[in-house]
């Protein structure tokens, strides 16, 4: 193999300018492939990280994926002689039954945190003004382990609800719209007709204006009383040590407790498929750069094969095998691919580093953001792997043609 490699190197060095041009194509191809791929992967990872951080990993809801069978259906399984129509399920208080036990079970799993929530709607009234508000009744000690609301507090704390169970935490937009202040009392009327007065103990700002205008947090016990649903929660929020296991754990949990358990992957399915499509488009575009570069290699090796018919004939007459000849030209492609990758990866890294220095300020945002780039080894491996494959494929066809040269035909011609 060393001998074949030395012949391959000599062939490439004999055509320095052509080899250099095709090498440059591979270098630029690898560099752009790496930069764009790591930018796209980085932004995807950043997006998913924000998604995972800002939303619970699993929601356990108070509904069932498949409605439960009525007793008559369970008994006769549709084979009865009499059909009973318009059967109404028994009216019962909505919510997850025995949520405390489910939460205890979830907490018994290593690293898992869970918090029950009773979510509902109410009408907030202050100084003669009313507005609809979504309220989350929760246990302040538990909720902080599963959602990031504490990070968005601009005044007060969720923990203040422990000391004062009649307190409420509202969004900054709501506070501004109603000209409220921390410490003010507001009234909330529930659909059940229950009316409660809450003292504003904290204010949050998430940056999502809808959420900051319409959302509030109260203690679970007060919410249960307000909604007239004692000992009920309608959601259990779960945070996992490994968010990527959410789908499996949600399915297992649903099998155990029956309540619909939705993983973050399931609830973001449309976003995930959009990301997958975006990746396909991105890899197609970036691959095109390397495919063009591969044509450069094809061109160089085809030319070498054509020019070297006489040398191929003499090598074969000497006793070189057809596969030796093929290897000589495949090695040439491999050399261009390897050297192109070795030089393209540092160039790509430099481009990535340069991009990282760019700071952008999105309109309406006070924060500056930097380009999210993925420096993972996989990006480097994909870029160099693709370049090598493209170079090998580009070299293979002319190499095969070279291996098929019949020495007699060339020797007869004497050229």
């Amino acid at each position: 193999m060393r001998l074949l490699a030395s012949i391959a190197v000599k062939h490439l060095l004999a055509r320095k300018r052509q080899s250099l041009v095709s090498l440059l194509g591979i270098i630029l191809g690898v560099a752009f492939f790496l930069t764009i791929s790591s930018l796209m992967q980085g932004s995807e990872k950043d997006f998913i990280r924000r998604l995972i951080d800002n939303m619970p990993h699993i929601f356990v809801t108070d509904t069932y994926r498949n409605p439960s069978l009525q007793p008559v259906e369970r008994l006769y399984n549709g084979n009865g002689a009499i059909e009973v129509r318009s059967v109404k399920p028994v009216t019962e208080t909505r919510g997850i039954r025995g949520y405390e036990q489910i939460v205890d079970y979830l907490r018994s799993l290593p690293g898992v945190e869970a918090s029950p929530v009773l979510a509902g709607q109410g009408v907030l009234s202050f100084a003669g003004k009313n507005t609809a508000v979504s309220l989350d009744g929760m246990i302040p000690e538990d909720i902080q382990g599963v959602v990031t609301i504490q990070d968005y507090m601009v005044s007060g704390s969720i923990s203040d609800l422990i000391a004062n169970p009649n307190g409420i935490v509202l969004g900054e937009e709501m506070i501004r719209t109603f000209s409220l202040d921390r410490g003010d009392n507001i009234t909330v009327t529930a659909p059940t007709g229950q009316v409660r007065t809450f003292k504003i103990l904290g204010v949050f700002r998430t940056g999502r204006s809808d959420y900051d205008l319409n959302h509030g947090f109260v203690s679970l016990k007060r919410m249960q009383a307000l909604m007239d649903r004692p000992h009920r929660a309608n959601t259990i929020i779960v945070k996992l040590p490994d968010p990527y296991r959410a789908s499996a754990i949600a399915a297992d949990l649903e099998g155990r407790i029956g309540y619909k358990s939705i993983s973050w992957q399931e609830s973001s399915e449309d976003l995930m498929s959009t990301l997958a499509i975006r990746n396909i488009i991105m890899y197609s575009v970036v691959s095109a750069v390397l495919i063009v570069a591969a044509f450069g290699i094809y061109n160089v090796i085809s030319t070498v094969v054509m020019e070297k018919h006489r040398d191929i004939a003499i090598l074969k007459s000497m006793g070189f095998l057809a596969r030796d000849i093929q290897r000589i030209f495949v090695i040439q492609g491999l050399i261009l691919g390897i050297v192109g990758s070795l030089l393209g990866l540092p160039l790509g890294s430099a481009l990535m580093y340069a991009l990282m220095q760019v700071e952008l300020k999105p309109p309406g945002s006070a924060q500056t953001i930097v380009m999210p780039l993925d420096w993972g080894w996989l990006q480097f491996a994909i870029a160099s792997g693709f370049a090598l494959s493209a170079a090998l494929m580009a070299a293979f066809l002319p190499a095969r043609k070279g291996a098929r040269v019949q020495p007699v035909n060339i020797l007869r011609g004497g050229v």
Partner: protein
Amino acid sequence: MSEIVIRTEHLTRRLSGEVPVTLVEDAGLEIRRGEFVVITGPSGSGKSSLLYLLGLLDTPTRGTLWMNGENVSAYSEDKLAELRLSELGFVFQFHFLLPEFSALENVMLPMKRLGRMSDEQIRTRAASLLRELGLEEQQHKRPHQLSGGQSQRVAIARALANDPLLILADEPTGNLDSASSENVENILKELAHRHHRAVAVVTHETRFASAADRVIKIVDGRIQG
């Protein structure tokens, strides 16, 4: 009587096509160790085609070919290539040296491919072959820096690299001046007579025929006499 290096029986080569062409017809011959054989004939008579068949570069349409007593007619491409590498040496009208390699590297190539010696031994043998052929000063020169006669002597050194049984030369002096031609002719003759190798030379030149142990004349693809 010396051992037979190569023997053929009814060796025939036809090119198929709309008008089939017979290059060699029913050729039967044998060449022995130490024999200097010259194959002559008019242009297009099939001399080179016969040489390519003897050199296992072309496959006969019919007939049998024995090398060293072994029937090689049904050998695979790979086995034939192995035989070419270890038992045969070629010298062509055009030297066909690889232009990117020096004279020394060109001679080293077949030995490296055979892989029976260390790099150092290969280098020493290649240098010694070039020295024997009077090319000591030229061993690091590339083919374009050599004269026609020098290039042809490098090609002979390369043909001798793996110490072959049979050396086949196709118009080896066809492109050389008379002094170089004589030099090449003497080398080939010496290889047969002093080094006991079988040498078969295809040539137009009458001088070769007069120096040969045996002359094989070929007309219209058939061996005469």
